[in-house]
């Protein structure tokens, strides 16, 4: 092989590898992006019915219930304007408490009930998941404009 051909071959191989990588990435990206919706957006029907997404806000006071087996939790996530009922099976984080912020990832059923596969809460007492914080902020703003 002439040096020029070698160089072309090397470049070709690199381009091919990068092509495969880009394909992999875009494919995985499309199917694994998880979008965030606030309880108000979910109540307005803006959330997708056929794929997983995240909701976040405060856990409504007095809303946490346990089913018979003790491992299924039912609670409501609220942004102070709307609240969404959530079912979750499993162990919740240490800082999962009524009145505190949380983010849940899962799918919404036809009955409007959100079935969570993951529940995230705060890492320490002073910290609120930013998604939950922004959902509440948006709802408060919307309320304020309504009152005016």
């Amino acid at each position, binding site marked *: *092989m002439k040096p020029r051909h070698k160089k072309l071959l090397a470049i070709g191989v690199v381009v091919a*590898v990068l092509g495969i990588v880009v394909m992999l*990435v875009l494919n*995985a990206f499309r199917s694994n992006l998880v979008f965030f919706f606030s309880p108000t957006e979910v109540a307005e029907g803006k959330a997708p019915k056929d794929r997983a997404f995240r909701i976040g806000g405060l856990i409504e006071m007095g809303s946490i219930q346990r089913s018979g087996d003790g491992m299924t939790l039912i609670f409501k996530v609220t942004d102070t304007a709307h609240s969404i009922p959530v079912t979750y099976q499993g162990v919740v984080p240490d800082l999962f408490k009524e009145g505190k912020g949380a983010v849940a990832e899962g799918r919404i059923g036809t009955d409007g009930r959100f079935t969570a596969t993951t529940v995230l809460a705060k890492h*320490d007492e002073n910290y609120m998941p930013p998604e939950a914080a922004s959902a509440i902020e948006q709802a408060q703003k919307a309320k304020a404009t309504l009152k005016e």
Partner: protein
Amino acid sequence: MIPEIGHFALILALLLALVQSVLPLIGAQTGNARFLAVARPAAQAQFLFVVLAYACLVTAFLQNDFSVRNVALNSFSQLPAVYRFTASWGSHEGSMLLWALILAFWTMAVSVLSRRLPEDMVARVIGIMGLISVGFIAFLLFTSNPFDRLLPAPPDGRDLNPLLQDPGMVLHPPMLYMGYVGFSVTFAFAIAALLSGKLDAAWARWSRPWTTVAWTFLTMGIALGSWWAYIELGWGGWWFWDPTENASFMPWLAGTALIHSLAVTEKRGVFKSWTVLLAITAFSLSLLGTFLVRSGVLSSVHAFATDPARGAFILGFLALVIGGSLLLYALRAPTMLGSARFAAYSRESLLLANNVVLVSALGSVLLGTLYPLFLDALGMGKISVGAPYFNAVFVPLMVPVLFLMAVGPLTRWKGASLPDIVVRLRLAFAVAVVAAVAVPLAAGEFKPWVALGVGLAVWIVYGVALGFTDRLKHGSNLLALPRGFWGMQLAHLSMAFGIVGIALVSGYESQRNVKMAVGDTAQLAGYTFTFKGTEAYEGPNFHAARGHLVVKSASGSEFTLRPEKRLYNAGGMPMTEAGINYGVLRDIYVAMGEEIEPQVWTISLFYKPFIDWLWFAAALMALGGALAASDRRYRIALKDKATA
């Protein structure tokens, strides 16, 4: 008084860092020998004053001086002394001061260990590291002063975040920072070479041990962080593709690529400008990691404070360092093109393939980490990129890297024969395929990813063994082999252990969440768990319910696990301490959830096969790095000068 001394020492350190950067850099450009001579003493003095500042901060923590805001927010009178010490870097301010301290330490190390290097090179390296010091110390003094007073002083502190009160957290931050900041040495060498125009094999040889040492520390830091997450978060997970983890993993990937490309640049004088670019990338990603984790951009335990001034400062600094170095690179690199001749099949070409794939993997992690931030910043919605994305992209990309890992070290520089290597590795391939089929079947269920992992591991082990027999055939004995060779082989071997651990734990782990009253039993993976109830106990700064579970294996052996649910006195924050029984073949891991009725708990039971192989692999990898960095030829370089 002591905090003020610390503050003053930090101001002096800033001034010394200015001297350390400006004079030597001017001296190197103009050939002024007196300016050049300033570099070493200035760097050493700067180190002393940063040490003094850090000692003052530690003293304030140990003495419970709650009139210092940083101490009041991050310590507590009941906190055990070891955690009062580690709390000194548990906060944003403290961790930035630790950054500055470690940077000063590395600079001092360069100033002591660089006697063989040309004076102008040393002056440039120390000068560039001085510029970085200036940036960090200024950042501390102007936006994040760890010595700020809080008056009137509160009677007690708010306590260190309980998540950080763990043995794993004692060493994780310093190790990680030794790695991050260690790349500043390689970076400074690269910039110095660009400035001087001398981008030669000697430059690559000087850079190599520093890069390897930094990479070794980073490896240990990441592994400690992963181990911490495993034992402390109570989910039994060890890697979450969390942005903060990615922030440390990206410099590691760049550093790994850099170690390999430096080898080519030193031995064969090719890939020069690519190596320089990787050196810039590795350090830029270290800075980016610091920015991501410490500025509050990411939502996590690491994001201590959200202060726009800090974010703006770090972003500006980042833009200056990355933009400036890339501009210099663009101006200088084209004038220094070396010969780029190598055969299509040679060790060079395989290492090039290694670099292409590692950098692609790095790019995919970078995209998944930064894309949500960009979308959010542009107001285009909040998204998250979860573990499935990273697994789908990263794992397939690692397959060719691991495959070539066995082939590369057996391939000659300049050019090798492809048929030869095929013949040599024929048997290895057969053994790997047999193992890939046999091991998952023996484990009870065939899983393709487990098969692939086991096959690759066996393939790598075989390659390493061939590497040793090759050397021994030529008459040397095992102990006489150079440490560089040992280091490379051990690091490669550690990957085999790591893959086995990852493949088997991902493939065969199992978990159950159960409700247990006293006397209840539950089954998992052939083990019988009996809950004997909980007892109350008082820790130094928390009170806890300590569970008592008796676990019986299928073979009849018995052991006890004592998971805890703690409530910390200062903030009332609950914490789960897992109960773990470690084993070579599996961990049994138990975490208590909630007490739903008196003495009735939700409990998570985990069976984690081969997970400890991961930590062993990391330790072996670090040992490999340490051996490679202490290779004889680097030590001779030092000794020659000492006796001369």
